[in-house]
């Protein structure tokens, strides 16, 4: 960001944590960045009244004094986006952490001006012809970035006209000019404001599912590419674990993992895990398709607020190159708390639970940046947003949870009782929804699995029935129920333990292909049918209950991650064994 020298400077008059008030800075605009004090801490303008302006500072403000300089920069909060993001870790302001010192002191702010990503060299290959007219989003050339991702160098926003010069294949740094469009130099990396959505041509209305590799999601509560999902869950319900599994196994091209106000050890664990795991689709490492934005709970709070926007901007950046990106934000509640803390310091009137009145609209603006679109360059690509919500006290009526529910297509509610009984992922089948389930069913029907919707409906009915019977059995004892109801109870257990439960740590079970998931569900439904037939023929329910159905429960562990055939073979064996009871 260029600094406009001198003339517009003002002076600090008040400092209260991240809230800073300045006096006398000229011609400020809302959201404009200023550099504060001797260390040039960045701060954003949030209110202007006469000659006085209120700022939120992105760094620790210790040592700032009344009278210190406040220098407007003329620009808004933006991130320098270019090749070299994948596999790296950044803070909420998109400064690389990989090259940052051990302790994140304020002194680091000065040294971070020259991030090491800028020094790396890339091979640029031109893919356009000079003399032609190009517009925003058109491909100028490519850079092999990492793994399966080819970085496409696009004409930046707001630029169009004649391509008067284009570099031949060459080695370049990210800030070197590789093309001249309409007299403007274009380099590999361009600064991109983070608070404004990047433009695209149009939203698409057809539905394509995002395969997450987690059965309870893919079979029961599927999420479409370009949709938004919220994951509310109290602490200890396995929220982070589930999000990490999605980061590892979903069939996206690029994952942006935003650790927003979460644990440092957890970020270290994500980084470690992704660095070790292989990407089954490309043979590279999973980290090579991942950008991690880590603003842990003890890092400056307002940078935490920015990290959500930084993350989604990075995802949109890859979307514009034609990729399917997924943003995982853990947790949106910490972001909302940052909004609340700042609003409180600013003396804003609180709405619910002390949150500012614009909480709902802020959440809506965030989730609405998800979408499956035709990009300006004319390709189909998507940004899927998955936001964790951490309701205080597990209270699902608190504002962040209730507001999030209104703006998402999918709700995956994590249930404390399931988690306490070690049923993971603890996605509640009564408290969750998937508004695109019918459309996903049609997609499956058109793509080789016409039974998908029927299977899902049967599973949902069986779960509801067995839940109802379990409540009854708690009062009168299971043995007092009629035979077919006892089989339904048993069927519910097989479905929960054999299909919906998934062991994240197991090499066979951690990821589940669509085919294996369908086969597992078929296995359970067919076994339930066979047992019902036996009971109808007069076989005692006790006999069935005492039959060893362990092979049904162990199928998910025994068969490989994509081995549907082994599951089908298991079904045939179990059905044969049940035959004997006739």
């Amino acid at each position: 960001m260029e600094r406009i020298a001198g003339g517009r400077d003002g002076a600090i008059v008040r400092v209260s944590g991240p809230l800073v008030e300045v006096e006398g800075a000229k011609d400020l605009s809302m959201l404009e960045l200023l550099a504060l004090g001797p260390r040039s801490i960045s701060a954003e303008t949030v209110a202007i009244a006469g000659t006085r302006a209120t700022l939120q500072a992105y760094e620790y403000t210790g040592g700032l004094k009344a009278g210190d300089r406040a220098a407007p920069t003329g620009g808004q909060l933006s991130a320098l986006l270019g090749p070299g993001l994948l596999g790296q870790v950044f803070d909420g302001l998109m400064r690389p952490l990989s090259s940052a010192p051990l302790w994140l002191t304020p002194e680091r702010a000065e040294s971070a001006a020259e991030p090491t990503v800028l020094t790396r060299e890339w091979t640029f290959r031109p893919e356009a012809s000079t003399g032609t007219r190009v517009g925003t989003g058109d491909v100028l050339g490519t850079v092999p970035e990492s793994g399966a991702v080819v970085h496409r160098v696009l004409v930046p926003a707001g630029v169009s006209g004649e391509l008067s010069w284009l570099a031949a294949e060459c080695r370049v740094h990210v800030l070197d000019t590789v093309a001249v469009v309409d007299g403007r130099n274009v380099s590999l990396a361009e600064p991109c404001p983070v608070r404004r959505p990047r433009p695209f041509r149009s939203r698409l209305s057809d539905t394509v599912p995002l395969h997450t590799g987690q059965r309870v999601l893919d079979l029961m509560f599927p999420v479409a590419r370009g949709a938004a999902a919220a994951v509310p869950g109290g602490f200890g319900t396995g929220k982070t674990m589930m999000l990490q599994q999605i980061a590892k196994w979903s069939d996206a091209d690029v994952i942006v993992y935003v650790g927003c106000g979460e644990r440092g050890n957890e970020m270290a664990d994500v980084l470690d895990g992704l660095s070790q795991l292989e990407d089954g689709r490309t043979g590279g490492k999973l980290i090579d398709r991942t950008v991690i934005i880590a603003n842990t709970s003890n890092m400056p709070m307002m940078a935490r607020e920015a990290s959500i926007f930084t993350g989604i901007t990075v995802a949109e950046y890859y979307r514009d190159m034609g990729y399917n990106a997924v943003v995982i934000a853990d947790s949106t509640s910490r972001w909302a708390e940052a909004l609340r803390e700042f609003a409180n310091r600013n003396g804003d009137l609180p709405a619910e639970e002390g949150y500012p009145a614009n909480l709902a609209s802020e959440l809506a603006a965030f989730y609405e940046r998800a979408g499956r679109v035709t990009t300006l360059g004319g390709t189909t690509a998507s940004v899927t947003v998955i936001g964790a919500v951490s309701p205080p006290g597990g209270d699902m009526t608190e504002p962040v949870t209730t507001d999030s529910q209104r703006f998402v297509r999918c709700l995956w509610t994590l249930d404390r009782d399931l988690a306490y009984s070690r049923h993971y992922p603890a996605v509640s089948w009564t408290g969750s929804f998937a508004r695109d389930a019918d459309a996903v069913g049609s997609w499956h029907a058109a793509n080789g699995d016409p039974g998908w919707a029927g299977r899902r409906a049967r599973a949902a009915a069986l779960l509801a029935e067995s839940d109802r019977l379990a409540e009854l059995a708690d009062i009168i004892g299971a043995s007092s129920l009629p035979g077919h109801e006892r089989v339904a109870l048993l069927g519910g257990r097989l479905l929960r333990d054999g299909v919906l439960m998934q062991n994240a740590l197991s090499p066979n079970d951690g990821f589940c292909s669509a085919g294996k998931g369908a086969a597992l569900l078929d296995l359970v439904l067919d076994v339930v049918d066979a047992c019902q037939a036996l009971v109808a023929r007069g076989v005692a329910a006790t006999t069935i209950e005492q039959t060893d159905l362990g092979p049904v429960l162990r199928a998910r562990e025994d068969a490989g991650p994509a081995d549907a055939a082994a599951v089908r073979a298991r079904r045939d064996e179990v059905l044969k064994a049940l035959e004997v009871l006739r």
Partner: protein
Amino acid sequence: MSPAAVPGSPDGAPGPWLRDIAAQVSHGDVRELRGPLLIAGSAEGVGWDEFATVDLDGGEQRHGLVLEVDRDLVTLQVLESTDGMSLGGIGIRFQGRPLHLQVGTGWLGRVCNGRGEPLDGGPPVAGTDLRPVSGWPLNPVRREPPQEPVLTGISVIDALTTLVRGQKLPIFSVPGLPHLTVATQIAAQATSSGQSFRVVFAAMGLTHADIAYVRDRLEERSAAEELVLLLNAADDPVIERILTPRIALTVAEYLAYTEGHDVLVIMSDMTSYAEAVREVSAARREIPARRGYPGYLYSDLATLYERCGRIKDHDGSVTIVPVLTMPAGDITHPVPDLTGYITEGQIVLAPEIDARGVYPPVDVLSSLSRLMRSGAGTGRTREDHLDVAAQVLAALARARQAAELAELVGAAALSETDRSYIAYQDMVEKELFNQGQAELRSLEDTLGRAWAALAALPEQELTMLSTALLARYLPRQADRP
């Protein structure tokens, strides 16, 4: 291995941290005193978060931290409270920087108050390094994911919620339960790969009886110069509690990353700490979030708890065990709730288990150690550890259901399997969970007891254990009681 470079270099003139670094300009224009807050005027050139010394008439010194700067008005929170202060006759000297602490190995073996001033009759603690007490965030990229188990010698913790070096694992309790006993037992017995821990114990708002108990139980560690005690009693200044855990953690970080020790920090009681934060917030007339606690309580607690961890290519670790009492036993109260969101699991103590005479009274089904999966099992503790733990818990969940059913229909109406679960629950509580307050059990002993309890169940119920593990560890029928 090189010591971690931590900002804040030695100050040149070592001495107690509360002594003035240099003679400062004294500001005497006090405009307002409100609760723990002091508002001074005509104080130009003061930075936010600066530390200040307040001189009272008669030579008494108090200390404060800058909470807000507004032109020439400065709001200070006074650590020792504003009792007896008046608008006149006060001199304030600002230190020109945030509060720094002298750190060094000299802290080991010492007993200090909540502000770090000696209570043991010794000289003020001197150090070799000067560090800011608020610490700096550790670059998450440089963290080493915690992996090595900490053995506490307490069966229920070692077996089911294994503590891991560099973890933060709180104890949630209610008043009247033996949480301090458990915490001190962990402090007295904790080892990692056979190495003993250095312990920093930060007491906040504890009664004098509790403090005497802690000092007594940790006598040995203290004598061996492995212990730092920071004691803020229930009748000590409330605002001082905001400082106590920060001093503890600053000392701990030095001992861990510069001296290479494994350090265990016990902070009790975090509820008293949070109340001190609330008191300051209320005095500042901030808009409260839940139950009068400020909206930034999460971030505030995180700046304490997140100081645990390990660093890549460095020896040493900081493991934190905060202890908190849940008001009215409510786990959704802001203090346990926000703590649970930051920490890596929780150990929950339950009155009904205590009433059955089980010590430690851990409610294992609501307890969890998130890092156990990387800190236990093959290569860490024993190959069967994770599976046994999962089986013990699953069986307990089932046993609880059976017990509830027995209440309704009578034990006689239960199936044989359900009756075996009730027998199992009894056995696991008596043989595995219950133990003496000074009893140190080896991991072998602990896991052996778990297997013995599981043997009370029919073998086909042990679905989480592989046939190989069953063959190797399950006691033979003939050996069973």
